[in-house]
């Protein structure tokens, strides 16, 4: 089990405050969705949790402060899939997923590393094009490869920034199902930034709603996703209907004040 605690986290680019006293906690297995409009600080928060950016406040993983760990130590605990991969590299899918093993490798690739790579490729169904170049794949296929790499990394905490942004309806649902399954079967904690509220509602056990760099609300999807909140945070009039225990959002029109 892994426990993530974010406490009083603030971050500014020069003098512009991007995140302001963010506070939430979650445990594995689970999927946390960071939602909120463009520019609300989702991506910045993910980078702060991974220690790529150095925020004020605390990020604790099982009680250890992430900023005080060395980069390889962080990499063994936290995997990160950035948003919008525009990678034109000649690397094959296999080589790319293998990279996820870097925090564990000495120099040689062991049997165990290879096995982890094969399993991760199978879990994300990318083994079909294992030996094709990343640049030759569709956006959705590429995104699945990136998630496979994060999975191969074997870290208990996975940070995903918009993992479904390049995916069509079915692929988006499938990746989210896979992510949920990974969380529960492999005991991982997944924290992801996500725009699609319905996909978020289906997959997440906790939603953290960000607005102007602050936590506006947090709780289960059913608690959080109300017409009032959507009107307030997104400025959109919406209807929320529950199906199979999941709140579905039907946006009607931008709210006019």
């Amino acid at each position, binding site marked *: 089990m892994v426990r993530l605690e974010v406490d009083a986290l603030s971050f500014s680019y020069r003098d512009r405050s991007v995140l302001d006293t963010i506070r939430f906690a979650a445990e594995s297995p689970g999927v946390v969705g960071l939602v909120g409009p463009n520019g609300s600080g989702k991506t910045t928060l993910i*980078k702060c949790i*991974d220690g*790529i950016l150095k925020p004020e406040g605390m990020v604790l993983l099982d009680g250890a402060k992430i900023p005080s760990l*060395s*980069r*390889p*130590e*962080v*990499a*063994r605990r*936290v*995997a*990160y899939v*950035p948003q919008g991969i525009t*990678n*034109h*590299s*000649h*690397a*094959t899918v*296999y*080589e*790319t997923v*293998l*990279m*996820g093993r*870097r*925090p564990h*490798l000495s*120099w040689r690739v062991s049997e165990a590393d*290879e096995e982890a790579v*094969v399993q991760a*490729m*199978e879990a994300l169904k990318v*083994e*079909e094009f*294992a*030996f094709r170049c990343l*640049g030759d794949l569709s956006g959705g296929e590429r995104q699945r490869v990136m998630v496979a790499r994060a999975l191969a*990394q074997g870290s208990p905490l996975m940070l995903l920034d918009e993992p479904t942004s390049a995916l069509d309806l079915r692929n988006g649902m499938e990746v989210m199902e896979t992510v949920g399954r990974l969380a529960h079967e492999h005991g991982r904690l997944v924290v992801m930034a996500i725009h699609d509220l319905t996909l978020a509602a289906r997959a997440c056990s906790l939603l953290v709603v960000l607005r102007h760099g602050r936590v506006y609300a947090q709780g289960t999807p059913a608690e959080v996703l109300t017409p009032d909140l959507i009107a307030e945070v997104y400025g959109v009039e919406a209807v929320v209907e529950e199906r199979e225990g999941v709140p579905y959002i039907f946006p009607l029109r931008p709210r006019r004040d």
Partner: protein
Amino acid sequence: MTRDALREGIAAARQKRAAFFFFTILALFLLIGVAVTLGSAGFSVAEAYRAVLAGLFPGSFESSDLAQTIVWDFRLHRVLFAVVAGFGLAVAGTVMQGILRNPLASPFTLGIASAASTGASVAIVLGAGFVGGSYLIIGNAFLFALLAALIIYAMARYRGMGATSMILAGIALMYLFSAVTSLLQYLGTADELQEVVFWMFGSLDRSSWPKLGIVTLLLAVCMPYLVYRAWDLNALAEGDEIAESLGVPVNRAMTIFMFIASLLTAAVICFTGTIGFIGLVAPHITRMVVGTDHRFLLPASGLVGALLLLGADSLARTLLAPVVLPVGIMTAFLGVPFFIYLFMRRRDAGW
């Protein structure tokens, strides 16, 4: 794809790599043998090898004094210098393309070679330099090349060390140094002008055993380190943030890699003058066959660079024999068509 097929694919890639190494090393040995025989004092491949072996193991092999003198004093160090220079330039290019994530990055597009030319011109035209005596030109070329790398590094650092800013800084510097070189040529006498132009052609005529020793030693130090750090290069090729999240200390790693690549380039071109395209082309050819794993890409691309430069020099020596063409011209003749082919082939050329 079944698990077995996947495993087979992984094994097949491994075999392909091994075969590539085997054949490039074999080809390199053969080409060295042929290259040693090329020249006006015509003797056979067998005689050339005998002379080489007689020098290495005196007493065990018979060879004429003339053959031994020609091979050991004139040809062998030039041939071997082509090998280490090609190796070094290709490795430097591979490292730069890796960390800058740009297929067009090379010691030349980053302005390092132009800076070396400027350094040489300052020595030739103004007679000014950091080191005096017979090493004036070499010392200047070397230090100017490193200076260019340092400026790029400082500019990029100031802007946050992005790959794109480093390339932009490099291109800007290339123009600046070219302009300075042109100015010096304009101001210089006819003799000086000729010397500058000749230096810039790039040639292996100036090779010698001590120079070969210096470059070999540098490679012997840098290469194991680079191969040992190959995983960092692999991760950096994926982007700074990904590399960081995979546990690479990005800024430090970039700095070290950039320094080593610049050092290798400077050490080679200060002795040879401008030899273009090896550092650009060799990594591309190699990547197509060996893949992008720098553990294998670095040495393989070094071997390809060695083959290319030795091949180009052999052609340069025979094409208009007894006139020896500058090898820098030959590498450009071979390199430019490939460069254009590369452009045409890129489907994502939209940037």
